């Protein structure tokens, strides 16, 4: 992460000087820091709300019913021996909220899941389970891409939902490629 982050910033600064716009760097730092604050402020309310709602969810029998179903499909990708109850519970919630398209809830549950996985991970590097879990989260599992559909109808599309099946095909392709790659890379990069 450190290398990627420094590379992005250093390359941007060099290019800004080469194209004669060094002032853009300063103004961008100011405006983008403000954007980060605005984004997080926009997030706080929804993240806390969903975190609260899902706390209720976790304490009802709904979770067990859901886990039984999700576990059969999802847990086969993971090494179940290394996952404690807390991790499994939050992984189920994370994947469910991803599929339903509640992004903020998925973020909260995802963070709790990976914290639980990290607490039993002795190495300073992420475990195989952690890399696979993060990878699944980088794929868009959302069944109905509501934001894009809303944007399409806003700009006058004659059939805003026509993209659904292609979107599902794309998701399956990217998830397959991602999981195959991470399984290979986990063996190569220890």
């Amino acid at each position, binding site marked *: 992460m450190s290398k990627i982050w420094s590379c992005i910033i250093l390359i941007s*600064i060099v290019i*800004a000087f080469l194209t004669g716009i060094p002032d853009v760097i300063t103004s961008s730092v100011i405006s983008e820091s403000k954007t980060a604050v605005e984004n997080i402020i926009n997030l706080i309310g929804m993240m*806390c*709300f969903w975190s609260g709602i899902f706390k209720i969810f976790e304490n009802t029998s709904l979770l067990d019913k859901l886990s039984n179903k999700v576990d059969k499909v999802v847990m086969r990708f993971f090494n179940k021996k290394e996952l404690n109850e807390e991790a499994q519970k939050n992984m189920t919630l994370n994947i469910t909220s991803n599929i339903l398209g509640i992004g903020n809830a998925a973020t909260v549950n995802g963070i709790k899941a990976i914290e639980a996985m990290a607490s039993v991970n002795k190495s300073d590097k992420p475990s195989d389970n952690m890399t696979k879990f993060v990878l699944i989260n980088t794929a868009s599992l959302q069944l*109905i891409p509501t934001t894009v559909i809303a944007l399409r109808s806003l*700009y006058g599309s004659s059939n805003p939902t026509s993209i659904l099946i292609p*979107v599902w095909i794309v998701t399956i392709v990217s998830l397959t*490629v991602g999981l195959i790659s991470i399984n290979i890379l986990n063996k190569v990069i220890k």
Partner: protein
Amino acid sequence: MLSYLAVSVIPIMIFIIIAAGVNEKKDVYALFIEGAMEGLKIVYKIFPYVLGITVAIGLLKNTNALNIILSPVIPLLNKVGVPMDIIPLMAFRPLSGAASTSLVMEIFKNSGPDSVSGKMASVIMGGTETTLYTITILFAAAKTKKLRGTLIAGLLADGAAIITAIILVNIGII
């Protein structure tokens, strides 16, 4: 019909969860407050990471660095059926959600959502996630600075997604 279903998901979820809690005689309100407090702590913990990544990607975007780096391959991409206005979206989709949303809106405004580029943009946007942001936030929570293969695998997956989206539109599936 489908859009009605989509807007009903959240209200129904909230209803079912609270109703189940009440039905099982849980202290629903106390649980909500406890969970909301956890949410607040999470936001507090991830902010520095969000700041770091937002500023870095902002610099890349505002200095036009990405377009300059990509400029040698643009003619090649055009030749294989990638419209000009999709190229910036391809580059920014894994890096920034806000930047890619505004690129999609620009494409919709200029070419329309039912044009070839409009369809490609829709499928790319709907079928992929902001990979770098997701990785940043989840590894921030895990307090690990090593990524192992995740970024490479995530970007390969995005690449496959984008290529699939372009092919699907070019062969006229939508």
